């Protein structure tokens, strides 16, 4: 049980996928202009990432095995694309409200490097099925947390008196860097 808790804390804070592993930067910079959109993107990513971590564990253990390990990346990409499509259809049918929130972000997730990165890290770390799911879920929660925090800061920066040269993306990049430094403070909390 402690192991599972440590995996969650470890992925959310210590090895935060955006701030420490520097993965998934495109949605992090692109969709973080507003708090609501970043929440929507975070929710969609959490959903897909948890599913794809589980699916990719099954693929790498039962379909590929050690002989075909070189197909890992390729088959994960195919599987993630399929899962995203499937999720989109199911959500559209079962819950139009949720589709309104997540709808436009779901196709974006297909090309999100964090979504591919976490299954690959799972394989490297030799996680079992439950650990893979938790690692995916924790990573996505960390991604959402970083996005939401960053979006909050960006909303405040809109009103701030930024020097003309730094306006827009420049100051956002600097802020992201400072945030990443702050996350370094968690290092050593969990091994």
């Amino acid at each position, binding site marked *: 049980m402690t192991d599972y808790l440590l995996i969650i804390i470890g992925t959310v804070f210590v090895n935060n996928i955006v701030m420490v592993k520097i993965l998934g930067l495109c949605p992090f910079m692109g969709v973080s202009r507003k708090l609501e959109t970043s929440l929507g993107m975070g929710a969609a990513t959490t959903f897909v990432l948890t599913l794809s971590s589980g699916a990719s564990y099954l693929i790498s253990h039962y379909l*590929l095995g050690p002989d075909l390990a*070189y197909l890992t990346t390729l*088959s994960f990409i195919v599987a993630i694309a399929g899962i995203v499509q*499937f999720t989109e*259809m*199911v959500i*559209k049918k079962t819950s139009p409200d949720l589709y309104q929130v997540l709808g436009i972000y779901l196709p974006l997730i297909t090309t999100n490097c964090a979504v591919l990165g976490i299954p690959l890290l799972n394989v490297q770390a030799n996680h079992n099925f439950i650990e893979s799911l938790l690692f995916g879920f924790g990573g996505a929660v960390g991604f959402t947390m970083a996005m939401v925090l960053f979006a909050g800061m960006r909303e405040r920066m809109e009103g701030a008196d930024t020097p003309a040269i730094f306006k827009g993306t420049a100051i956002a990049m600097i802020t992201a860097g400072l945030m990443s430094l702050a996350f370094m403070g968690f290092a050593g909390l969990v091994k």
Partner: protein
Amino acid sequence: MISALWVMIALSVLLGIVLGYAAIRFKIEGNPLVEKIDAVLPQTQCGQCGYPGCKPYAEAIAKGESDINLCPPGGDEGIHKLADLLGVEYKPFGGDAQPKAKAVAFIDENTCIGCTLCIQACPVDAIVGAAKQMHTIIASECTGCELCLPPCPVDCISMDKIAEDISNWKWQHPVIIPIQAVA
């Protein structure tokens, strides 16, 4: 090598089956009202109603965002049909563009320089021709939307009114004449 191929094929086929099944199982029916309204609209895709085509206009009517009296090619008759379909009062034409008598475009082939600009503008592909070749209009396909007139650099397109004859004559809609009190 062969096993790698088999594995990838199996994965793709599996995902294909799942997605194909999901596409049927989780199919969303569009708003049936939109289809009905779209069927009444003249499909000229001319955009004179202010929407980018007949389908978007039909969607706007179905949502209640737009009035029924904005379609010039549909004319008075179209408004009557829409009013019947939606169970609302007929109202006279209200858009910026006014309905005109039915017409087809005609290209003056002596003036045409073969620039293809009108071909790109035509929403129903009723103009044939190629670069530096003279263009001509397929009269039976032309909906008379006049979208080819503005892009023509030499103004060689004119609109020919279709004369009323036995094949296209229709009963006029009854005009209600207000009864005046006899003094």
